């Protein structure tokens, strides 16, 4: 949490991935990936998504604003080991067993198709593909309606902390594939 003093008030800006709900992160994700918007403007939009009042955004001085950006951690990529399991409403959703996460062939194909569609809720849909309800069969898990429903659940119940490591991994894998494709050409 970053404390911002403005006039006689203190506004607490959530700045850690664990403090930001996934549905908020998805809005931030859309803004961050919008190349038509300048970096500073992107941060303005992100802070508004996190509830920063317009008066603060419009009137805070440049140095303070840069300081806020410096301390803002939620948009970072991370090489941290991703969460193996999450629990929501008594149900357990598992991504992997053992020490290290690896994408399965089936999940990779679904994720690539999802990425190609460019949906705004890519993060929650990504997690819905990766995290499987341990009480369902593989076929039940792959049902598109189930995945859609799970994505909505994850968007409201999970935080960016769960999503960012997986997004980082898929981004790195995509970059590696593009580099290999360029080598072949």
């Amino acid at each position, binding site marked *: 949490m970053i404390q911002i003093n403005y006039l006689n008030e203190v506004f607490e800006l959530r700045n850690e991935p664990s403090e930001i709900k996934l549905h908020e992160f998805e809005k931030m994700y859309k803004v961050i990936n919008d190349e038509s918007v300048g970096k500073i403007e992107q941060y303005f939009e992100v802070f508004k998504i996190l509830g920063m009042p317009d008066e603060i955004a419009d009137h805070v001085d440049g140095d303070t604003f840069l300081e806020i950006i410096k301390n803002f951690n939620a948009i970072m990529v991370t090489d941290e080991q991703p969460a193996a399991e999450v629990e929501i409403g008594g149900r357990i959703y598992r991504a992997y067993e053992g020490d290290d996460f*690896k*994408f*399965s*062939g*089936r999940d*990779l*194909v*679904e994720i*690539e*198709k999802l990425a*190609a569609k460019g949906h705004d809720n890519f993060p929650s849909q990504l997690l819905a593909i990766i995290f499987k309800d341990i009480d369902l069969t593989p076929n039940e898990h792959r049902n598109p309606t189930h995945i859609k429903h799970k994505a909505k659940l994850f968007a409201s119940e999970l935080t960016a902390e769960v999503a960012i490591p997986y997004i980082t991994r898929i981004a790195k*894998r995509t970059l590696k*594939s593009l580099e290999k494709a360029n080598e*072949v050409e």
Partner: protein
Amino acid sequence: MKWSDVNIEEFIELSELALDELSPTEFRLERIAILTGELNYDINEDEIDELLKEWAWLDEPIPQTYKTEGLKDFNTLPFGEFISLEKFITEKAPIFNIDKIAAILYFDDFNKGLKEVNEWSVVDVYGAMESYLKYRTDLLTRINLFEKDEQEEEVEEDEEPTPYTWELVAYDLSDGDVVKANELFKMPHLLILNWMMLKEYVISRQRSQTASNHSDSQLNE
């Protein structure tokens, strides 16, 4: 495994995989499945990467050497075979019809040829197809039969547009006589094309003459 181990039938299947309908990983795994008969998505990303490394040759160009034994001399292809090749080259991308193109380039009996070539290696044939496509492009560029100049387009303004197909060429040259047309199909294609060019020249000369006579009579009035 390498390209020389891939037969024509498998090559067509590989070519028909629609990259825009499949995800990149799916496309690569499906290609391997066509050649091995096995499709396994229940492997992790590291295993996929190892597999793709083993099959990386699929992204390399196909060798341009080809089987010369039995390959017909392109210059002496009969007009009928030339027309058939035109059909297979233009109805879709040539690689999807590589079997039919090869059957014509290597066999006199098309159906027999089609059965046999599907068992041949793609490296036996791919370069021959490329070689024929180059021959065809050079030929059609040189003869320039299907481009009309502005004058001809003006004269034909009131006429209904006609599709300029090779069968119509045969119809035209044989005056609509199917027996004569059949004989034309057996003649060398270069002879027929030269005859077409001659006919175009004669018609063009007649048009110029007619236009010149018309302006002379206007001047005299």
